[in-house]
């Protein structure tokens, strides 16, 4: 389980970077989503995935570290908000630019 999760995280990072390097602006968003998911899973992995739920009661056994899960919750909320903003921004960029290719967005670089 643990190793599988590690491999999955690696694949997500790779997929995220790959999608971001492509031309399409929609794939840019997908890439960013993969990247944030990979990061969230990494945080989850860091807390250890074996052990009981972190509730202290009588006879409670070895439990998981609850702190990374709190981190993930925060990070998910933040990335949700930002991705929502980014989607609107990209839609607006498509409206003003009428092109979906990232290479067409060069004119503020001159």
């Amino acid at each position, binding site marked *: 389980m643990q190793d599988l999760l590690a491999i999955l995280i690696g694949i997500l990072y790779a997929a995220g970077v790959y999608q971001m390097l492509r031309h399409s602006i929609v794939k840019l968003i997908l890439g960013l989503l993969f990247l944030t998911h990979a990061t969230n899973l990494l945080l989850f*992995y860091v807390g250890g995935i074996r052990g009981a739920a972190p509730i202290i009661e009588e006879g409670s056994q070895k439990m998981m570290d609850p702190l990374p899960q709190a981190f993930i919750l925060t*990070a998910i909320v933040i990335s949700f908000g930002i991705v929502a903003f980014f989607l609107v*921004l990209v839609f607006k960029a498509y409206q003003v*630019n009428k092109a979906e290719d990232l290479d067409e*967005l060069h004119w*503020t670089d001159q």
Partner: protein
Amino acid sequence: MTDWILFPIVLPLLMATLSLLPRRWRFDRELMAILGTLAHLIFCLLLFYQVKSEGIQVLQSGGWAAPFGITLVADLFAAAMLVITGVVGFAIVIYSLGTVDELRQTFGYFPMLHVLILGCSGSFLAGDIFNLYVWFEVVLISSFVLLTLGGERDQIIGGVKYVTLNLVASAFFLTAIGLLYYQVGSLNFADVAQKVGSLKDKSPLLMTELLFLLAFLVKAGAFPFFFWLPASYHTPPVAVAALFAALLTKVGIYVLFRFSSLLFTVQGNPFSTLILWLAGLTMVLGVLGAWSQTDIRRILSFHIISQIGYILMGLGLFTSLSLSGGIYFMLHNIFAKTNLFLIAGMIALLGGSYQVTKLGGLFRSFGLLGALFLISAMSLAGIPPLSGFFGKFTLIKAGLAQGAYAIVITSILVSVVTLLSMLKIWHHAFWKDHPEPNINLEKKWSEHGKSRIYMLLPVLLFSGVTLSMGIFAEYFLNLTHQIATQLLEPNIYIKAVLGRNTL
């Protein structure tokens, strides 16, 4: 004893919330913005004097002792940066009153301004790395909105680049946080700094720190990650561009200083050579970019990058003198650069363009504006007795003491090119005749009515600060020297955070 440390965070949060309320439930938005940022500045000054007289201030929120709760820490560096945030926020609000249009103000310009100030204040005070991440995101979200508010074509396209690069940097930052937590089991700065030394296997730690370094270099706009900055900073209204120039990259740099002081030093600062190389390349490429541009805002944007290089040079050398010089340079640069952006806004208003080739004749009609521009521009280039000179002088002295001749020579040459590109603006906008021979600039200026005062006041304020940072350089250099001493003695910080409340 009052915990002034809380106020720079609570006040902007309150102001942002209040100014989002419907009109009939609140005061005038402009009035709230002026009073709110003024009060923020006063609280920051109070905190600064408290830190200066009583030492590092620590607030354990909720009464949870240091490694477990969220800690707010104000050392001298944080307090000084807060004061600057206060001054810049106040001045930008006044400038915005005269320049930001009604539509932008209706759609949440001032609330977002408060949130940006909130985020910056929080980043400076955070004593915990995850908390720092959250403040970074607060800064980011508000800057996204400020950058794209108004929805002009350039703004949207510049915004896409800015958002993408900063999101990638945030992902790296969060990854590094996860890896650090895995190794150390804590994210409190002081706690981490203490535990890192006793780690058995230090090689994964090196990679973690490299990820942190990468994330902050992107935020700071250093080589090779700077290209988002000149692609986006010239697109929003000039008040927003000035605010970004003052605060955003500096937050990244501030965190780099903090990490260097507390984390990287534990392993004998493995990145100092790398940072010095990046500093040199950042300086050179930034200034060459500036030289090749003809749009005033783009020239200034590239100069931001170039001057990040100087601050990094101070960080890379990592001696008491160089840190002091780097911090002094950062303080000076915030004022001088913001002022230049504000003046650029006035130039564009008068001449009708940001393109230097389409401008001219401003010195004949507006000698005062020319003088104010010259103060900041010459200060940026490092002409004595203005503030930039003392920053560069201290940095070069520190470099010579370390025998780092390559970076010293680079920094001197870059200064010369900086002067050249400043003279380009001066020559085109102020000295040569206006391309249209019969234009009446005075008449255009008098059409702006009350907003002229709103624009001139912050420029006068910043010019005054730049001048006094040069004239009273000894006071400021003493201050930055104290800051550098605190940064080089992380034990004081660790003791202040962990000492008082540990059992």
